[in-house]
């Protein structure tokens, strides 16, 4: 039996090629994902462990929790603690570090790396005058307030040389620092592509903490002292707002975080690989069904000479095993290539992956092979069973006994029930899991129903096809000739397009909803804030002052956030300019008004509900400095993403703040938004690279950019499923052409030219692809709508936005898929030898 199966595989090499390709692609995706993620996480782990080699015990501030916490308490570590730590028995050396955001401007004044992972820290020279963490590659360490050192990669990226003046921003005005040194480091952030700027300790403390205060103290153990022993010694002198961690634990924690991060990525990518493989199943099943139909006589003969049903099924499965194994091995090899390629690609896009060997674990190899073989055998199982049912007498029939076209009644009934249940569940779904279940059921229901749907939907295309004369007519009829096959082919394409359309609909709708939230309530022309990760630092109050002083600015207000104890909880208060707030926002007031003076507060209705406040309620607050005050609620508004919580006038909160930081400054100008206005605002703020000035459009674009990036990644991942579907269409067409040799020969003989034959095959392909496309887009819109109903609960401004343009593109894409898939089969059909085709068999 094995030999027969093997011979069959060899005999149908060409026809099995597409099947192998389909499985291969899926397996390559799986193994590529596994290789890539394990390589990257391995590299990160190694690099992060290197980063912790200089630390045996780290002392970090410890934030009190719950009742003990005081508003505004951000503990730091004192110089005194550092001095004490240095004297602890077993401590060899001690270094204190301070860190925070440091945006660096490139030569054009733009923020390097758009502000992501832009860190500033201090150079802490040890007893030998060197900081072991940051070996200088050239130049010397910063010593004075106007000096800075940069990591090698950042210096290269910005094209900076020693002695250059580096414009940078921490939170306040622009700093102009002289580049004195370039260093290399194992710092994890830098390894991941971030930038690191080093100041001398005093300057760093001024910028990030307070003179004489550190945000972390690292202690190195003397030889012979264990990390735990050192930790125990240090614990004795710790103040209550600090904690110690051993270097090993830090490394372990980081390793675990990296592993978690990469496992999430792996899961996501494997889901998409799974989709591609699932699509592949349709193609495999289709191929084997057709191969078996062609071999009916042969199989019947085997049955007639004594092969059992089980043996027939087994021979088909062995065939599938061989195909799966070939695909698995080649897929694994391709996957290793993909893994290596992905890393190179990632390095090119700026996100830097630390160097390391390509990791191909045994589990990757086993998984890839198993997936390839199992998927293929699973898909071939049903056709195999069908093969076993061929009666031995079929061998005797002179007429080629094509399996009787079984009625679709049972299939349609099952499909109808599944689809109806799925649709009902999707529409009425109360939770995400119910929605998922409903969507799954509906999708399966539609699969089962595709043969039924193919007739009316393809018939609907008749008027269009009529333009192409007889070729169009024949194409349409050929497309519905074998509804099961057409359905399986179209379904493969449908899955990909359903997901793509669904995601596009959801993303588009969410984007417009967020957009509305962000900009609808805004009357200001510009919103000024820190760029990138600097957002967490906030703006210095100077920014608001400078802007307010400009002649073209008619109104401005900072959003000044501060913590206060409200009732029994800590809550943040937002300080605004009470007299200009109403000019800058367009909030919808449920009750009360937007006028804000003195000890008044306006609150969004959610917060009010949480606290049980009403218009006129009076609220006791305790500020950071321990002073108390009483506020009266004078307005309740519909909150949004940008403006929510408790808003009070700045005159109430500012006096109690030890350090004033503004999250944003809203600005209204005389002439509205214009390039000139923006330029003068930028100039007034000293061309600070870390400060962004956005009008409503910029804010919308920033939101759109984030969502588009995500969508593009998802498109790229789903493209795999579409490629597999293309192979399916190619396969089906090649089989159809092969089966209809005689017809095609006759058509050629009675006068249909090659062009006409090609057109016929191409149109058939187009019809099948568009059928899959229309189904997929339709289902995608439905799922997008259904998911939107869930999202609506959490996002009040959510409205279904149908991306007509993109849907049109997807339909075109489906058409393109059809045209591409038909290239080869159409050529083959047109070149077919007429004489051998029409010869009677």
């Amino acid at each position, binding site marked *: 039996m094995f030999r027969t199966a093997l011979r069959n595989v060899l005999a149908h090499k060409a026809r099995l090629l597409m099947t192998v390709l389909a499985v291969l692609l899926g397996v390559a995706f799986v193994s590529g994902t596994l290789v890539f993620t394990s390589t990257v996480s391995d590299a990160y782990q190694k690099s992060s462990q290197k980063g912790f080699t200089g630390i045996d015990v780290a002392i970090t501030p410890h934030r009190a929790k719950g009742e003990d916490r005081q508003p505004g308490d951000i503990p730091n570590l004192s110089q005194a603690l550092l001095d004490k730590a240095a004297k602890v028995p077993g401590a060899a050396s001690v270094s204190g570090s301070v860190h925070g955001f440091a945006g660096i401007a490139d030569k054009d004044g733009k923020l390097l790396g758009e502000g992501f992972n832009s860190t500033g820290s201090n150079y802490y020279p040890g007893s030998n005058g060197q900081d072991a963490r940051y070996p200088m590659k050239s130049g010397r360490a910063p010593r004075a307030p106007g000096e800075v050192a940069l990591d090698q990669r950042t210096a290269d990226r910005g094209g900076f040389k020693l002695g250059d003046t580096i414009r940078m921003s921490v939170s306040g005005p622009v700093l102009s620092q002289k580049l004195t040194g370039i260093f290399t480091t194992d710092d994890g952030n830098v390894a991941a592509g971030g930038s690191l700027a080093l100041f001398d300790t005093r300057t760093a403390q001024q910028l990030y903490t307070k003179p004489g205060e550190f945000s972390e103290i690292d202690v190195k153990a003397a030889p012979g002292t264990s990390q735990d022993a050192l930790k125990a010694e240090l614990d004795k002198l710790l103040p209550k707002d600090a904690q110690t961690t051993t270097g090993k634990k830090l490394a372990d924690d980081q390793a675990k975080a990296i592993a978690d991060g990469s496992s999430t990525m792996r899961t996501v990518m494997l889901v998409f690989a799974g989709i591609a493989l699932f699509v592949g199943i349709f193609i495999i099943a289709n191929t084997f069904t057709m191969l078996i139909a062609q071999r009916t006589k042969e199989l019947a003969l085997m049955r007639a000479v004594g092969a059992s049903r089980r043996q027939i099924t087994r021979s088909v499965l062995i065939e599938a095993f061989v195909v799966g194994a070939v695909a698995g091995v080649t897929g694994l090899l391709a996957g290793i290539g993909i893994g290596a390629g992905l890393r190179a690609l990632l390095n090119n896009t700026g996100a830097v992956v630390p160097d390391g060997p390509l990791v191909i674990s045994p589990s990757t190899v086993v998984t890839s092979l198993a997936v390839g073989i199992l998927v293929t055998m699973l898909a071939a199982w049903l056709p195999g069973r069908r093969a076993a049912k061929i009666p031995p007498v079929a061998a005797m029939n002179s007429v080629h006994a094509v399996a009787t076209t079984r009625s679709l009644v049972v299939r349609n009934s099952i499909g109808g029930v599944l689809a109806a249940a799925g649709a009902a569940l999707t529409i009425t779904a109360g939770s995400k899991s119910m929605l998922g279940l409903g969507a799954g059921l509906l999708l399966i229901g539609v699969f089962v129903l595709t043969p039924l749907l193919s007739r009316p939907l393809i018939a609907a295309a008749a008027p269009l096809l009529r333009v192409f004369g007889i070729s169009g007519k024949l194409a349409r009829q050929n497309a519905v*000739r074998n509804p099961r096959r057409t359905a399986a082919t179209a379904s493969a394409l449908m899955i990909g397009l359903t997901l793509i359309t669904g995601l596009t609909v959801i993303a588009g709708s969410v984007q417009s909803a967020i957009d509305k939230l962000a900009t609808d309530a805004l009357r200001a022309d510009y919103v000024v804030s820190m760029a990138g990760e600097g957002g967490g630092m906030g703006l210095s109050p100077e920014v608001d002052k400078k802007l307010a002083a400009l002649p073209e600015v008619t109104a401005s207000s900072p959003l000044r956030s501060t913590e206060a104890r409200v009732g029994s909880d800590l809550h943040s208060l937002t300080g605004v300019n009470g007299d200009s707030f109403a000019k800058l926002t367009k909030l919808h007031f449920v009750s009360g008004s937007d006028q804000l003076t003195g000890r008044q507060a306006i609150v969004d209705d959610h917060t009010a509900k949480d606290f049980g406040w009403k218009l006129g309620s009076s609220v006791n607050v305790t500020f950071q400095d321990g002073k108390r005050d009483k506020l009266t609620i004078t307005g309740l508004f519909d909150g949004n993403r940008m403006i929510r919580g408790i808003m009070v006038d700045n005159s109430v909160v500012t006096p109690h703040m030890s350090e004033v930081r503004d999250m944003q400054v809203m600005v209204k100008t005389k002439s509205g938004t214009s390039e000139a206005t923006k330029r003068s605002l930028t100039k007034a703020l000293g061309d600070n690279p870390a400060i962004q000035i956005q009008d409503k459009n910029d804010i919308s674009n920033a939101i759109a950019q984030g969502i588009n990036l995500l969508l593009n990644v998802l498109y790229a991942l789903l493209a795999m499923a579409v490629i597999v579907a293309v192979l399916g269409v190619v396969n089906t067409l090649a089989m159809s052409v092969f089966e209809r040799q005689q017809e095609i020969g*006759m058509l050629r*003989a009675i006068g249909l*030219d090659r062009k006409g034959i090609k057109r016929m095959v191409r149109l058939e392909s187009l019809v099948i692809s568009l059928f899959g496309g229309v189904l997929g887009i339709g289902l995608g819109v439905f799922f997008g709508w259904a998911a939107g109903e869930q999202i609506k609960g959490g996002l009040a401004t959510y409205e279904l936005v149908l991306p007509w343009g993109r849907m049109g593109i997807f339909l075109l894409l489906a058409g393109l898929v059809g045209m591409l898939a038909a290239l080869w089969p159409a050529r083959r059909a047109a070149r077919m030898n007429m*004489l051998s085709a029409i010869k*009677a068999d």
Partner: protein
Amino acid sequence: MTTSPSGAQTAVRTSAPAARATDLTKVYGQGETQVVALDAVSVEFHRAEFTAIMGPSGSGKSTLMHCMAGLDSVSSGSARIGDIELTSLNDKKLTKLRRDKIGFIFQAFNLLPTLNALENITLPMDIAGRKPDAKWLETVVETVGLSGRLKHRPNQLSGGQQQRVAVARALAGRPEIMFADEPTGNLDSRSGAEVLGFLRNSVRELGQTVVMVTHDPVAASYADRVVFLADGRIVDEMRQPTAEAVLDRMKRFDAKGRTS
């Protein structure tokens, strides 16, 4: 064939032939494996005449038909349909010629299963994008006796009926010449006789020209003329054949085959 109205026939025969082969040679393969299928064959097929091509297997009768019908290329010599030289035509023009001037009937019927009888009959005209001549179509359909079955699909028709659809398809475009390749090969004798009757009627009553390849002496007896082929050459010709005469002639091939 005593019933044939011979007067009308002779009148037409004087005009130019519907198809003519001159020194037609067809060689397959090269060098050692070379096979000469047709060896400088010259033959004329007259208008409004029913010609049968006969010969033992391998004699080149099918090749001759394929070359004359523009289905196969010619190694040397000339093949003409009317006054069109086939050897000078490219594939596109040949296809057009087959579509507009030639009708085909195959042994395996070769109907499209997705089209009904009427659609199959008008297929060549649909390909050409022409409207069928309704009156002629009616005549043809009546001649082959398919009036009640035009909406049936091929799988709802018997073999004889299917071949009658094929005959109607060949006739529907009013071709200059019809080629039939063993048209009764897949039919029982009664259906075969019917189909042959239609072919003869189409010549007698509709003035068509038919060339038929067959190895069945009974089928050949329906023709006005039989051309015998052996080893790629025309070896004999018979007018007003009877089944017995054709059978006797064929037996001589067999005898020769056995003795040589």
